[in-house]
């Protein structure tokens, strides 16, 4: 069997907490996961779920309490493993006295590229992330969005086979987010494995082949987005307008949301046509009828509220 791009086996991380650092808080509980080559894999979860912890463990920035992981067959402790990967940390910060070009050139040196090779690589990357104009500006003058883009550039500068992105869309405006989405899709086209964490579920739905959902350190489910959330229609949403003073079935208006002169009404699928009848009788103007499908977000919320109740089970008492 070919080695998976990422193999995580019972990875666990405990942190000492409390004033005397005697109690342990388990921020990652026996995570087992396998990501195949070429996949775009989303790592989802609310804040504090352990996503960043997982990424830091994989990058060997922190050390596991138990468990192992391999990337492209190499242990995470092997420094050579880093030759074929890229990493974008959460809320990245780079040496602010360097310019964008200098930073990328600096990082490129660690891969042993010669001067000419570095120069072309850096130019290409700056172009890709749209920073060519700011290439000679010191990073201390960069906006958050620009920093994020430099971050992505340094993550892929060595043509990595696996790229790890921690909240890549964070801090970006819609234009920026679209650009990042395009970059990820481009990476996928080149056969790169992309592992990214996010709490923006619509992005995950759009981009990922598979996702994993992490809540309070525990893996809840793994699979394609549409496997986790069944593709079925729950209800229908009707948007309509009605002129002032018209008599409409009171029940309908009560159940509607009003924005300006527009109303949004959600009805079970079975009641759709009955509701439409009532609206027609009231001479309402129907603007749209949309099916409402459960999203990852709904799934999420259910999970989170369920998990929150017995939350003490996560804390492991030691000593």
């Amino acid at each position, binding site marked *: 069997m070919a080695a998976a791009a990422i193999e995580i086996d019972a990875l666990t991380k405990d942190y000492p907490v409390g004033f005397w650092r005697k109690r342990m808080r388990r921020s990652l509980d026996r995570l087992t996961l396998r990501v195949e080559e070429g996949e775009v894999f989303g790592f989802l979860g609310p804040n504090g779920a352990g996503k960043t912890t997982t990424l830091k463990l994989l990058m060997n920035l922190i*050390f596991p309490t*138990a468990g192992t992981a391999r990337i492209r067959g190499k242990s995470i*402790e092997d420094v050579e493993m880093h030759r074929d990967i890229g990493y974008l940390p959460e809320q990245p910060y780079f040496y602010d006295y360097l310019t964008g070009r200098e930073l990328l050139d600096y990082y490129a040196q660690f891969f042993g590229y010669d001067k000419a090779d570095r120069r072309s690589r850096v130019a290409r990357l700056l172009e890709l992330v749209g920073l060519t104009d700011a290439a000679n500006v010191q990073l201390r003058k960069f906006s958050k969005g620009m920093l994020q883009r430099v971050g992505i550039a340094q993550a892929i500068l060595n043509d990595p086979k696996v790229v790890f992105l921690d909240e890549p869309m964070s801090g970006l405006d819609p234009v920026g987010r679209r650009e990042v989405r395009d970059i990820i899709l481009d990476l996928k086209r080149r056969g790169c494995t992309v592992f990214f964490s996010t709490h923006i579920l619509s992005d995950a739905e759009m981009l990922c082949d598979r996702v994993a959902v992490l809540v309070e350190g525990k893996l809840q489910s793994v699979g394609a987005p549409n496997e986790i959330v069944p593709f079925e229609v729950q209800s229908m949403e009707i948007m309509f307008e009605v002129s002032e003073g018209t008599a409409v079935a009171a029940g309908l208006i009560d159940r509607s949301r009003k924005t300006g002169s527009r109303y949004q009404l959600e009805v079970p699928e079975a009641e759709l046509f009955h509701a439409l009848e009532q609206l027609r009788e009231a001479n309402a103007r129907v603007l749209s009828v949309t099916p409402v499908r459960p999203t990852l977000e709904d799934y999420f919320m259910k999970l989170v509220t369920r998990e929150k109740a017995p939350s003490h089970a996560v804390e492991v008492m030691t000593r």
Partner: protein
Amino acid sequence: MTANSRTRSAWLAAIAVPLLLASAAVVQNRIDVTAQSETTEQDYLVLRSPAVVKKLSLGFDALLADIYWTRAVQYYGQRIGDVHTKFESLSPLLDIATTLDPKLMVAYRFGAIFLSEPRALGAGRTDLAVKLVQKGIDANPNEWILNYDLGFLYYWRLKDYPKAAQVYAEGGKKPHAPVILTLMAARVAEKGNDLETSRMIFLQLYESSKNKNVRKLAMRELRSLKAQEDEMHLDEIIQDYKRKFGHYPASTKEMVAAGMLPFVPVDSIGFPYVIGPDGKSHLNPDSPIEPDPDKPLQLQQLKP
């Protein structure tokens, strides 16, 4: 198993660090040897001016004074016995120590003796010694013991008897001063240099100082003084022996056996005097040059 390479690096460090520290200690030892053999006077004092040192001491005067005092003693101890050394740095070291801590009695007392002591055992600079002790007296007007040391310098080194008497007299007036100071003032004024006065002075020095080197010096001088007197009396008795028996005695034991001496006379350290073929007595060659300061003095005199 996790953390394989990290545990290895920890073991490596655990072994390497003590090993390296041990080799550093070895090298440090070599450095100390080099420093000792090739030390120039300059090493001890980057700053020679007491005023500058005081300014830079940032309030840690007393501690620095102790450090300079210790260095002075170390410096002296390393060079003692070397006829070529001039003990150049001794005066500045003591000067700095006493500027930082004007109440550092030990430093004044040490300086009084060893700044004035001639070559091989001291700097041979009585002028510097006087200056130092005077500085001590000015800073500590109620300390009679410094008058004692200053008096010693005028009496023994400078042979300035009127001045010595004056200094002793002033000391005698200070609070809690022992009567002996006034006594010595009177004696010196009247007789100038004499054996008894000298003996009193050195006896006082021997009893009042805790410094080994000072005590040794006092013991040597006391031995010398006692010997002067004892040999004078002994020579007379030896002449008597010759007149009686026709030849000089080989040793003092014979004289005791002949009933001409009540006991075998010894020097202040306890070694019996020897008699030369010419009938003159002198100190026993076995009597050590460096007397042991912890052994008690034998001061019983040989009376005529």
